């Protein structure tokens, strides 16, 4: 009897743990990982010789890096309840300004990069003043900043394609590979992601951001300086956008005023899709999972020879499915 009791005591928790693990593994939060695995398996079965290669892996990461960086630029203000629609245009401004300075001046590249980051931060500062001092809705303020940044970019580019030569060291930022496998721009995504994850999830600063995003009034009553939080996230977003512009400039090698704004929708798509993964709110690793799913889907379809429109259709459909499941799950809770 005694041994039976012991057996029973041991087995019950193991069964519970097993069920918990299984439940967690198949929960909606991790659905993206299963979808990613299903896509890899599906594309692998359809054309494994072409799809299951290092080139595919490298190009998915390289193609998604800029989108990822911009998604983080949106994420930071988003968790604090602030919209920033200007991130892509500020990245475009940074890209064109850095390229123009490289071609038209003899400034060292590091000085150019520093100046461009400062100039990008000026947009964040302007947004912060509009949102926190003049009390303009962040959506409206960032739309305005978006247009101003776009106009400034067009003024500098004057409709031309600017072809800068930053030199090997700076070009490594956009075109280099770590261990011959990991594109440097995607390494930047992982590094920035890890940093943001630590700040958002494991520091008091992150909790203040989340609290402000959750309930601004309650946060203010709890003693959080909401205006400082909002100004900080807008400034951070503009700096990340500026950095993204530098990555774009060194990655593509030709700067035009149309290049960066086109990344806004993909970045938002990755962020919103990522918000349905791992946690029930926008989060760093969920965004990275979303980037990988969207990148893998587009790459797989391209390798199968799908028409151009299928890519957009795919990205939109995946986003809708993910968000629908998320809302469906939320409504049942």
């Amino acid at each position: 009897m005694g041994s039976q009791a012991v057996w029973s005591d041991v087995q019950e928790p193991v069964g519970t743990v097993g069920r918990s693990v299984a439940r967690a593994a198949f929960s909606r939060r991790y659905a993206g990982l299963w979808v990613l695995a299903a896509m890899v398996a599906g594309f692998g079965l359809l054309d494994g010789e072409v799809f299951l290669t290092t080139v595919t892996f490298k190009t998915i990461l390289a193609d998604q890096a800029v989108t990822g960086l911009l998604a983080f630029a949106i994420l930071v203000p988003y968790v604090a309840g602030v919209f920033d629609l200007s991130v892509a245009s500020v990245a475009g401004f940074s890209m064109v300004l850095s390229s123009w300075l490289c071609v038209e001046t003899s400034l060292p590249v590091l000085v150019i990069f520093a100046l461009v980051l400062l100039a990008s931060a000026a947009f964040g500062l302007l947004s912060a003043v509009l949102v926190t001092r003049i009390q303009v809705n962040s959506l409206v303020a960032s739309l305005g900043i978006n247009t101003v940044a776009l106009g400034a970019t067009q003024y500098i580019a004057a409709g031309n394609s600017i072809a800068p030569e930053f030199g090997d060291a700076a070009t490594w930022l956009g075109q280099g590979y770590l261990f011959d496998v990991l594109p440097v721009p995607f390494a930047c995504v992982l590094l920035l992601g890890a940093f943001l994850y630590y700040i958002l999830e494991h520091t008091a600063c992150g909790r203040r951001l989340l609290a402000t995003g959750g309930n601004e009034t309650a946060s203010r009553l709890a003693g959080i300086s909401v205006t400082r939080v909002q100004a900080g996230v807008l400034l951070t977003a503009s700096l990340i956008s500026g950095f993204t512009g530098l990555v774009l400039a060194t990655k593509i090698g030709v700067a035009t005023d149309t290049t960066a704004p086109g990344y806004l929708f993909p970045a938002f798509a990755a962020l919103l899709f990522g918000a349905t993964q791992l946690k029930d709110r926008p989060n760093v690793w969920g965004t990275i999972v979303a980037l990988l799913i969207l990148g893998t889907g587009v790459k797989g379809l391209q390798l199968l020879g799908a028409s151009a429109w299928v890519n957009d259709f795919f990205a939109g459909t995946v986003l809708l499915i993910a968000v629908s499941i998320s809302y469906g799950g939320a409504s049942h809770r």
Partner: protein
Amino acid sequence: MKRVREVMVTGGCLLVALGSVAGCGSSDDDAGGGAQAASQTTKGDAIDNELKPFLAPPKLPEWPALATAPEKALKLAYVGGGSGTAAVTSDALKDAAGALSWKYQRLTVDTSDPGAVDSAMLSAVNAGADVIVNSAGAESVKNALNVATKAKVPVVQLYAPDAGLPGFTASIAATKVSAEAWGKVMGLAVLSDAKRAGKTAHVGLITSSALPNFEPIADAAIATIKRNCAKCTADKIDTPAADLTTGQVGRGVVSFIQRKPQTNYVQFSVGFLSGGVRTALDGAGLKQVKFIGMVPTTAQLKELRDGKDVGWVAYPNQLDAYLAVDAAARALTGGDPKIHNQEVEPVWLLTDKSEYDEKVTPELPVDYRAHFSKLWKVG
């Protein structure tokens, strides 16, 4: 179980999507190659001979001079977008207008808004323009054309998809008119380069359903390649419009070459589209690919000098502007304004051996200013 079902439904949807596109995959890969194949399947010297006339800067044809010099102090209005090409066109129009002692005004519009083009043309007529040159799109300007016709203001269209659009006084540099010449030259250049290298040409041509102007150029290049080389392949790379403007053409090109690893040439209908493509190819270790294209940027002129590209067809933007003014001047002096409607653009294929300045896109033909001054009986 419900959650498992959700995951399976999501995965299932994606797999269905995958299955539905699987049939789109091409299976017509031609694994030809090698010097022997090249010598057996291409027409050798005939290709070089056909290409030779396009390797030197072109000369202008002889046109009849105007009956009389056009009236001075007329107003020319240019409706164009904010692109670099529009800026070049604007400068050349201003130059040509100056040669005729005309006044010049530029109206910059958002080319993605067809209503803005109509509105700008109406503004030009109302402001007393005597001549309008438009390069910002010919689709939604019916209203302005009617008003201009009533006011007897000639309207010259630049860069339309096709010549002879109703309502316009003249059409200059319509894509379909010159597409065959451009495509043919690029096709011949690729075949010539492949022959020299002892390879069979396998070409990917960038097109986009969003930009139908690229199609006839690509079609002409494909026809030239297939006509002259039985074992060569040439396939379009259908690129999403968003990728064209965001420097992401490279991802489609890399995927295309992964599917067709024998690809050794990529053709671009406009030079700036190649931004980021070389980087993407290098990153993927696909370094055997050479570029060919039209309308080079200074970046491509440098690449060409470095031997990475086959060649770039220089584009005569300045000449087109002068032709537009010439057509308008003919309309105003009783001549035939449609004289240039069906003229094929002068073609100059720049190669690593051509004489050009890497820092500026070349103007061609070199003597066009003096030529038009003579025709216009000025200066």
